[in-house]
């Protein structure tokens, strides 16, 4: 019962943001279409509208812990219900937004071409090229978007949970240390000590994880599960901080 109420609250809280996001997307498409209709010589491409959704879901994930955690804790919602409701809410939003984005893509590809002057290209097509079957493309693109959305949403939630648990010193250390390690220390070690062995292994892992849509779907789901697993480990003993 607690999970149901918590999920209901999370969905209610996300609803307004999602509506505003899609109103902005609709306004953007309308603007592009109007420009193409008005200026006859103009041609356009909308590449990966899904990237905007990814950014949106990442930010939504980043904003999903602190305030809700405190509110839920004050109302006797268990930590288990807090995490479970977040996972369920994220899955529902990712499913819905993946569906909407792919519907927008289909509409754009078929109805908003303006005689070939406007081209809608989805994230799947951008990464893996045009799919052989237009019928199969929809479910593949839908699953692909869903897994990537779910992964970034979970990553956002993990980061915010991690920062919530850390003290000020740890926050500074992670905020400075992680980018410094990734941008300077690791590349330097890779180049001078490991003779590019690290980057080769990393490239192989990334290639394997995302070399085909099916790999990407599985990788996205596995990473989502891992991120939520770590979030649970962090949240299960979290206390309210003032």
């Amino acid at each position, binding site marked *: 019962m607690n999970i149901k109420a918590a999920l209901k609250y999370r969905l209610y809280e996300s609803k307004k943001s999602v509506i505003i996001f899609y109103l902005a997307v609709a306004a953007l498409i309308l603007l592009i279409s109007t420009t193409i209709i008005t200026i006859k010589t103009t041609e356009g491409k909308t590449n990966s509208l899904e990237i905007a959704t990814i950014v949106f879901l990442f930010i939504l994930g980043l904003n999903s812990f602190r305030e809700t955690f*405190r509110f839920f804790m*004050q109302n006797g919602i268990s930590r288990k219900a807090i995490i479970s409701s977040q996972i369920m809410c994220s899955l529902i939003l990712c499913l819905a937004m993946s569906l909407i984005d792919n519907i927008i893509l289909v509409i754009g590809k078929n109805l908003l071409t303006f005689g070939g002057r406007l081209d809608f290209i989805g994230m799947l097509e951008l990464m893996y090229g045009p799919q052989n079957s237009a019928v199969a493309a929809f479910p593949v693109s839908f699953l692909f978007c869903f897994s990537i959305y779910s992964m970034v949403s979970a990553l956002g939630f993990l980061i915010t949970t991690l920062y919530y648990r850390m003290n000020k010193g740890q926050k500074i250390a992670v905020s400075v240390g992680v980018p410094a390690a990734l941008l300077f220390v690791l590349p330097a070690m890779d180049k001078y000590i490991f003779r590019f062995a690290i980057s080769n292994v990393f490239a192989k892992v990334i290639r394997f994880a995302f070399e085909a849509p099916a790999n990407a779907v599985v990788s996205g789901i596995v990473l989502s599960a891992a991120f939520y697993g770590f979030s649970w480990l962090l949240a299960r003993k979290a206390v309210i901080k003032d």
Partner: protein
Amino acid sequence: MSESNYYPENMKVADAFRWTGEFYDSFDRDRAVELSGRFGLSLNKKIKSLSTGYGTIFKLVTALSVNVPYILLDEPVLGLDANHRDLFYRVLIETYSENPATYIISTHLIEEVSGIIEDVVIINKGRIIRNEPRESLLSKYYCVTGHISAVDEFARDKKVIASETLGGLKNAYIEGTPDKRSMPEGLSISRMDLQKLFIQLTGEGGNMQ
């Protein structure tokens, strides 16, 4: 009911009641609205914009409307003026009469709650030093008032837990049961009050553990 306020930044009082109803099946929203009216709490105000007193009232109204078997009230009169404190104690008794439950009140204003509580738990430096019914606790002590010399004479062979002097008069707080028949003239006996006892049990020089 926590002393702190952890409600979201933009949540209004009416929305909070709505969601409390979702979280607690037994929450009586009509009762919450009715109590809000009695306390003068606006349903359309954002919780974060409420003053300390009205923030407390909001949490009190919520806590008194949830209808659960155990209700913990942490500093329930924090920031309340005298009228609202009086109203709260009346509403608490009223709610308890209609729907009996165990209310655990954590407060520093002992004198105010002493009239409505049944059991007392006194905690000093994280340790429980008394845990018993109020009547039983208070019956173990009494207060003797009179001229300093008369009180000192009376208390000589008794266990005095504390005393205070004002002008030529003295109050002595004594452990035990008074024998009214053997009271010397000029001395009066009164009941120990909970706050005085609390101060003696927990304050500087309180060595009654």
